[in-house]
């Protein structure tokens, strides 16, 4: 188990390999369909958000107001990443992302951007909404809430030991490709 803590430098990210189990402590920014399309089309990031050396989490959380008027995350599982495949590469390139978290994996354009710019794809356990919500210690802020609504907004989560697996690294290796190929071979011999 690798414990990843800020700053998320290129060096730390390049050291990660497919199959590494990682726990992330530090800030994650959520972003899903609306955010990706917006940034891809040249939309401006709110000033307080800095994605450089940051990690973007494909997640539409369920967040409630607590008694003190703060925010409390009640569900925070990953959403399917492949929908962002048309946009992700440019956001990695232009905003300097070091990590993307989601589920289901992504494809060639993203893999290439990871290799060129020093970024990795982390896979969280799909459906584990409760376990992952527990790893969010604090909601630091929320951006573009009025514009996009709660699930699509950019939430700033402070996490502790958020569990993920590297399934696409910065060296051009994708676990999704290798397992597809090996399982295809295994099936062919059993038909």
């Amino acid at each position: 188990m690798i414990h990843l803590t800020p700053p998320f430098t290129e060096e730390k990210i390049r050291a990660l390999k497919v199959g590494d189990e990682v726990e992330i402590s530090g800030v994650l920014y959520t972003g899903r369909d609306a955010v990706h399309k917006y940034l891809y089309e040249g939309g401006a990031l709110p000033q307080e958000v800095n994605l450089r050396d940051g990690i973007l989490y494909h997640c539409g959380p369920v967040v409630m107001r607590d008694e003190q008027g703060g925010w409390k995350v009640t569900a925070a599982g990953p959403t399917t990443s492949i929908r962002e495949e048309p946009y992700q590469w440019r956001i990695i390139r232009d905003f300097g992302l070091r990590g993307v978290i989601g589920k289901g994996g992504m494809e060639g354009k993203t893999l290439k951007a990871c290799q060129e710019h020093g970024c990795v794809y982390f896979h969280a356990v799909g459906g584990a909404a409760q376990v992952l919500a527990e790893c969010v210690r604090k909601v630091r802020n929320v951006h573009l809430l009025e514009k996009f609504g709660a699930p699509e907004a950019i939430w700033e989560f402070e996490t502790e030991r958020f569990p993920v697996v590297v399934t696409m690294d910065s060296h051009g290796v994708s676990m999704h490709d290798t397992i597809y190929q090996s399982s295809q071979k295994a099936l062919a011999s059993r038909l």
Partner: protein
Amino acid sequence: MRALADSLLELIRRTSAEIPDDVRRAILRSLEDEKKGTIAASALKIIERNIQLAKQKSQPICQDTGSILFYVDAPVGFDQIAFSEVARSAVTLATKKGFLRQNSVDSLTGKNDGTNVGPGAPAFHFHQRRSPDIQVRLVLKGGGCENVGAQYSLPCESLQANRDLDGCRRAILDAVLQAQGKGCGPGILGVCIGGDRATGYELSKTQFLRMLDDRNPHPDLDRLEQDVLKTANELGIGPMGFGGKTTLLGVKICAANRLPASFFVSVSYMCWAYRRQGCDLDAEGAISQWLY
């Protein structure tokens, strides 16, 4: 009607927050099967902890609380319209209480009015029967796993799948291969051989009402179920597609008559967050017994 409303609300809460025992047992068994220290074992441990946490906090197991599918067996003379009205209000109330996410979107406008009620949502399947009691079952079917479902039309040349059981086997295993971990595996397959395109998918979903450890009374289908399960678990796809021994937790197959002109194999994929529950209702609508 008060008792019925309370019963349906509790059915929804329990289905969303608590995995049925047969599924829990299958997940624990697969955790034992996976080698210690592998990614597959870690993923299953997280899944197991998530199941415990959800139950303890009475919160949805997964934030995608899915398509809401009611299956109702009722005697002749049962008022389906009244039942549907109560069930729709129960769904909206369950959404307000956070047992269900605001999860139903108008397909034309993209609007989500937050009620989980609209055309086709929730879905009701009523069956009349001679016995006097009422049985209600509920399945919450997630979207990620629904997206990896597949329907094959045999013969299919690219799969070398003919119109026979071997052809069905090839089609079903291709669905497993294409799904990889994308349906939040380990998964459970519900399959229908035959029917038209609509009834094929519909019947494939009724297979999710079966107990995971039951056996198919039809010997050919039983053999196919066991074979597909064993073969799928030899492919090394594993939980979430991380590699490992547990690709599927179960395979359930039924058959329906078809036209001479068509031969469909319809495969529905259920994620590990296999939410199904049911209850017997007494004459007042109170829950007399849980079914799973």
